[in-house]
């Protein structure tokens, strides 16, 4: 009888231990579906494991990692990834800040404009990539038409080594600046009013107000935008797959895409896994140094 009572208390959440009932099912499932693949990837990365030569599978300890660090194509993909991430991020921050500042002012039909501005980040990324592929088409694409109106030469952006990556960066800027802008906008709207009144009394110029009041107060919003965008940019791959396939040559081959190629084109599962583990380590270091501080900052009043 007593046990039955205890059980009822437990399932109706009245017992102090009831959280276990709520918490563990999800936790265990999540643990299984995250830890197993990660450990398995680690295991694979320590083996020579080629799907084309299954019989040669053997434990080679760190050999894959050593090869990776001597692999020029790996360094190239790291360079492409960082180049892509940093340029896109910088542009998105600057443009995003301008848009956020604009949206904090009086705008005609602001609701409509703001809705239009958030479209790029919700449209299915594959559809976005397909649109841009057709937009860049040198023969029939809209870009060449718009440029010809201005008497500018018609480029075939995606077919040349020097222009393919910039073309992809433009797509990313188009797709994700709104996201940065909306984060910054919510930061702007949360700013206290007093410093502005003080600045007005002191006769500060518009630029001074921005430089010495708005910008420092916005730091945490900027940090959040940077960390979330960087994480996404770092693992970037969908657009590459649809638009260029890493080409021409390896000029748009990112880390993720190179790992994909290793696994599914060269069938070298061990090597691809080693590359993934290296990516994970980079992400973890960045996340631990910047992310932790920024994201676990408890909201006020707690």
């Amino acid at each position: 009888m007593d046990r039955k009572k205890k059980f009822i208390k437990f399932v109706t959440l009245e017992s102090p231990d009831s959280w276990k009932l709520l918490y563990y099912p999800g936790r265990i499932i999540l643990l299984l579906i995250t830890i197993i693949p990660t450990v398995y990837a680690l295991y694979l990365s320590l083996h020579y494991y080629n799907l084309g030569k299954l019989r040669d599978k053997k434990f080679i300890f760190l050999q894959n990692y050593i090869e990776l660090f001597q692999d020029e194509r790996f360094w190239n993909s790291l360079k492409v990834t960082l180049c892509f991430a940093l340029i896109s991020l910088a542009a998105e921050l600057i443009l995003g800040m301008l848009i956020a500042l604009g949206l904090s002012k009086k705008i005609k039909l602001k609701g409509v404009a703001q809705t239009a501005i958030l479209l790029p980040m919700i449209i299915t990324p594959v559809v976005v990539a397909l649109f841009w592929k057709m937009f860049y088409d040198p023969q029939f694409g809209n870009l060449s038409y718009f440029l010809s109106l201005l008497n500018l030469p018609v480029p075939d952006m995606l077919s040349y080594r020097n222009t393919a990556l910039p073309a992809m960066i433009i797509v990313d800027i188009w797709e994700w600046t709104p996201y940065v802008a909306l984060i910054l906008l919510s930061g702007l709207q949360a700013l206290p009013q007093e410093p502005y009144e003080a600045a007005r009394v002191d006769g500060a110029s518009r630029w001074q107000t921005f430089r010495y009041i708005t910008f420092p107060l916005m730091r945490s919003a900027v940090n959040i935008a940077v960390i979330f965008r960087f994480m996404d940019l770092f693992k970037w791959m969908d657009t590459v797959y649809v638009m260029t396939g890493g080409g021409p040559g390896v000029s748009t081959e990112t880390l993720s895409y190179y790992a994909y190629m290793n696994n599914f084109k060269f069938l070298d599962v061990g090597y691809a896994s080693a590359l993934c583990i290296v990516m994970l380590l980079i992400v973890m270091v960045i996340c631990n140094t910047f992310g932790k501080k920024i994201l676990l900052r408890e909201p006020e009043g707690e």
Partner: protein
Amino acid sequence: MGKKRKEQVLSVVTNVFIWVCAVICAYPIYWLVTTAFKTRVDAFAVPPKWIFTPTLENIKLILGAESFMRSYLNSALISFSTVFLALFLGIPMAYALARFPIPKKKGIMMWLLSTKMAPPILVAIPYYMIYKNLHLQDTHFGLIIVYLMFNLAFTVWMTKGFVEGVPIELEEAARIDGATRLKAFFKVDVPVMKGGIAATGILCFITVWNEFLMALILSGYRTKTAPISITGFISFEGIRWGEIAAAGMMVALPVIIMGVLVRDHLVSGLTMGAVK
């Protein structure tokens, strides 16, 4: 006088700038929708035909393309199942984390977050190998499990914030009136959090619906999702822009509608609640 003039000029410049941005952001939608209703000749016309006689040819072709429609249903099935499971498992976890004294809470929250930060390709390769061995390749179940991994943590982060937003006094009042905690949760917390839960579900739906890499690697002939299916249109159909546009429009439509519905929660959702 000069100052007022300057204000006016600045206001005009700001308006123009924001509206130019808005047009640039909306242009692809305009292009997809118009191209979807153009004949093949009109779609490739240079200069582009701004005024044209619309045709339903492309839409009919897409609606009649069995493999595309099946992938569309696959996407819907997988997205809804993932959302359901993520909410079903995630809301209790969030409630526990928000209301009970659980040891090492911060560590748990950080670990949850790290599951979102991991590069998808890292997970995709081992899953591919595991599914190959377990014969889970090309099953809806396999894809749902992977998507659950990306969305469960997100659901917990989001809904934890919503639970914390419900004043604990409300719950206590219900319990003083004789309700158990479980009953109080359904009678008090759920009605208050309704909007937040719906927004979380919709954001999960958008993520799953839009996902590409996992579906590319883990789905197959039977379970192909809509985003994968459109890329197939390029290789099979050559460059029939009209059909690609019609298919793209259909794939993007549900997420656009839902995204606009949860506009106010969008930023908070995409930053795991770091921005309110």
